[in-house]
């Protein structure tokens, strides 16, 4: 039957494949010609050459975080903000209840905190409210500006602010905000457990004045530990606390006092906002903003065609191929995050809610941990995998906190010889000649390393570390796990998997520099399960009243960063940049903190977005 015919067809098909292949290599030919024609050794150089031609290597220092203004602002205008997310947004549009970053991106447009902060994340007095601190540093008195009004025209009052605290502290509250910042308010725990009807530490002095008394005075209060998002009592006051988060006033017609007002919402997909003429900083220049969800695979196309003017988060791995996009300017900032490698040194004691270090842990030898840090070349990793947009990390306080990041602390530099020496001296030697070191007791040493999947680079990156450790004679087994499984085994539920010895993960850090929540002995997120007296002392000092003195606090945290370099319960691997392409027509825009550029000033120089050539 179908005898000769299909073989001919197959031939035709293969032919078409070959043609496609040929067509593709034709495209490629121009850029890599030098590469294919040169010999092995030269090939790499030639490649380097072509990459540099494209501007191959980048550095966060080449990026500005404030948009250069080209042209004159026109009257009004609308812009589109692309919310980059591969899922829909939840639509819990209230600062007091939201839990996902996509929601926060939308909230930023129409609501804001009463306090603003500077580039060091310290509260300033030029926000919607001003504050004064009492002598003992425990009582804060806030004064809300007279012109600060909700979108419905009602004034934002001290009672609204108090109400936000009452809702979050309420036993029926179903959001994620209740934490140590709240338990630090006087009377909060009694209120939370139902022993008191009101929070004794919060007092409404007059319509626009509120005072909050905290149990412990700490500099962290000034950097993000004050809850500054009021909740409109005239709207939510009559509702049962448990019903607020699902009410239409949160999901369909959310309210705030920010520069724009929500006009309509397509659940999960887009939000249309119009300007709030009554905005306390002054009437916004733009007429409106549309926020729409775009997936990370369409970002580039949307930007090129002018489908969006601004986006929330640019996938950095797509940057090298699109660095020359003609219609946008890339803004860049240091991300408040770092990637790190952690060593399991114990387990979690759920009963006492604290870590329970295991002195006999496989990774218990500090020399072993130090050697593993010395063995990895994160400078090259950053350059090769991330084109310089992630770079070698030195300490556990990232440069996104310039006041506290210790620039003079170089961490542990890439030095395999030093690593080998450390291991030799500690007695890790290859006694059975298999190429891998044994423990000082002569037992075979096999280290289990887990890392998270996600993105193309995740797996080769983790494998690179395994190889790097192999070169200093350590046998490391890699297991790639997806997000949920990974955190489950690392001990997010308090049940650590004893088979895990080393793990790679990342932390986004808050605006407050205090790392207690990640490295304190009572922190669940201290996945290394590491406990150290000096560490506890430094963490405590860093939050003490004395630490209101900046120089003292800096000194403490420098000491802490050094302690972590010495002890290496975890070590940072990469710092990262966030990139934000902005359409050329957009004026007065900035990313990052404390820039003094506010959304009401945002404007455009042309009626419609500029398209790429």
């Amino acid at each position, binding site marked *: *039957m*179908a005898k*000769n*015919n*299909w073989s*001919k*067809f*197959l031939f035709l*098909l293969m032919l078409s494949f070959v043609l*496609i292949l040929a*067509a*593709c290599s034709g495209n490629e030919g121009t850029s890599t010609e030098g590469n294919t024609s040169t010999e092995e050794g030269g090939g790499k150089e030639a490649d380097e050459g072509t990459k540099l031609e494209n501007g191959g290597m980048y550095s966060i220092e080449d990026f500005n975080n404030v948009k250069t203004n080209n042209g004159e602002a026109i009257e009004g205008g609308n812009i*589109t903000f692309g919310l980059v997310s*591969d*899922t*829909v*947004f*939840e*639509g*819990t549009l209230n600062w007091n209840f939201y*839990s996902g970053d996509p929601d926060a991106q939308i909230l930023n447009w129409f609501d804001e905190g009463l306090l603003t902060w500077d580039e060091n994340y310290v509260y300033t007095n030029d926000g919607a409210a001003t504050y004064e601190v009492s002598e003992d540093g425990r009582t804060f008195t806030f004064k809300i500006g007279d012109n600060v009004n909700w979108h419905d025209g009602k004034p934002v009052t001290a009672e609204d602010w108090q109400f936000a605290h009452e809702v979050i502290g309420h036993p029926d509250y*179903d959001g*994620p*905000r*209740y*934490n*140590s910042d709240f338990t630090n308010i006087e009377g909060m725990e009694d209120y939370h457990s139902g022993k008191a009807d009101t929070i004794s530490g919060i007092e409404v002095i007059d319509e626009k004045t509120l005072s909050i008394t905290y149990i412990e005075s700490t500099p962290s209060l000034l950097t993000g530990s004050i809850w500054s998002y009021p909740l409109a009592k005239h709207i939510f006051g009559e509702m049962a606390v448990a019903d607020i*988060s*699902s009410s239409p006033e949160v*999901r369909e017609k959310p309210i705030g006092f920010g520069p724009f007002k929500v006009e309509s919402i397509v*659940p*999960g*997909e887009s939000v249309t906002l119009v300007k709030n003429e009554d905005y306390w900083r002054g009437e916004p220049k733009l007429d409106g903003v549309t926020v*729409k969800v*775009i*997936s990370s*695979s*369409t970002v580039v*196309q*949307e930007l090129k065609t002018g*489908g969006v003017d601004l986006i929330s988060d640019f996938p950095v791995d797509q940057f090298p191929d699109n660095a020359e996009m003609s219609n946008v300017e890339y803004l860049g900032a240091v991300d408040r995050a770092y990637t790190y490698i952690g060593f399991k040194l114990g387990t979690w004691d759920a009963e006492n809610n604290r870590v329970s270090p295991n002195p006999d842990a496989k990774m218990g030898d500090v020399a072993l941990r130090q050697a593993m840090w010395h063995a990895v070349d994160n400078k090259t990793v950053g350059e090769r995998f991330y084109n310089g947009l992630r770079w070698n990390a030195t300490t556990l306080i990232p440069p996104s906190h310039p006041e506290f990041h210790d620039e003079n602390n170089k961490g542990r530099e890439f030095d395999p010889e030093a690593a080998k020496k450390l291991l030799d001296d500690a007695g890790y030697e290859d006694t059975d000649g298999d190429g891998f070191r044994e423990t000082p007791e002569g037992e075979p040493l096999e280290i289990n390393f887990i890392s998270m999947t996600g993105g193309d680079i995740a797996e080769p990156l983790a494998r690179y570390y395994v190889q790097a450790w192999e070169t200093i004679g350590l046998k490391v087994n890699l297991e790639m796990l*997806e*997000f*949920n*499984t990974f*955190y*489950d*085994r690392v001990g*997010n539920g308090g049940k650590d998997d004893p088979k895990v010895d080393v793990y790679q993960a990342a*932390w*986004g*850090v*808050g605006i407050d520099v205090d790392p207690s*929540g*990640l490295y304190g002995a009572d922190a*669940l*997120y201290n996945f290394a399960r590491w406990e150290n007296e000096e560490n506890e002392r430094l963490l405590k000092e860093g939050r003490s009243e004395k630490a209101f003195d900046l120089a003292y606090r800096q000194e403490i945290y420098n000491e802490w960063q050094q302690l972590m370099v010495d002890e290496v319960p975890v070590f940072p691997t990469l710092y990262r940049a966030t990139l934000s392409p902005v359409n050329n027509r957009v004026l007065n825009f900035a990313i990052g903190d404390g820039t003094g550029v506010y959304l009401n000033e945002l404007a455009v120089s042309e009626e419609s977005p500029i398209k790429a050539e």
Partner: protein
Amino acid sequence: MWKLIVRRTFLTIPQIIILSVLVFILAQAMPGDALTGLIDPSIDPATIEAMRERLGLNNPWYVQYIDWIKGVAQGDFGQSFRFKMPVSELIGGRIINTLWLSLATLVLTYLIAIPLGITSGRFNDTWLDRAITGYTYVGFAAPLFIFALVMLFIFGFQLSWFPTSGSVAPGTEPGTFAYFMSKLYHLLLPALSMALITTVSTVQYLRSEIIDTKQKDFIVTARAKGASESRVYNRHVLRNSLLPIAAFFGYEITGLIGGTIFIENIFGYPGMGELFLSSISLRDYSVMTALVLLFGLAAIIGALLSDIILSLVDPRIRIK
């Protein structure tokens, strides 16, 4: 026939229940839950634990299952743990896209299969027939996801004839003609990719059916009576060959389900298949379970539909 439908429906109920229990247990066995994604140093782990307790995530699976099945019985699939909106609302937004995609695929499948099958069967052993049979061989061997990928590569990226993701161009107003056209434009390439592959079995079937039929006595008789060739085909051969094809309609639905998962994933088309994959990685159990049930139900109904059509077409086939 009504008896058949009623009986089959009763058989379906235990199937659905077993399926739901199975999926529920699987969901519980997965590491992590919907709140694992909240991991963030600024959120107190105790607060997350309290939320977990409130959502009932700490209850044993059968307690959660009973709670859930009670809701389902009343048509309430519960809340998405992750998106905090009713599951029905979340799926509702996607189901339309998937329905459109499936419909377009079905239409294209038959649009391709019927002329090809007829040509191939009528002119069997000609060059035309060989070319068509060759195509079915190739289509038969090519895995759908690879074919779709190559289609996307060629027509989406290299030639830029079609959009490479999404279900509608952003900014178009729902309800307008432009919106409709944009939707159509977006689903054309995915639907065509799927149809070109799924159609081959129908082509092959139709071909052999026609070849069989045209040897049969009544055709020979019709021809002997002097009926024109086209009349023979349109009147007699086709009628007899197309009916079984119609019966496969239901089974095609079953086939589409697996296909949409790949197609939606590759073409970034926001439908139920894509939602299923993301609900798995987000551990959004309520959504995941509801989707598996819906797909299971669609498959069962599809099979039922085919059986009914078959029994109508061919009384010899009686389904137990």
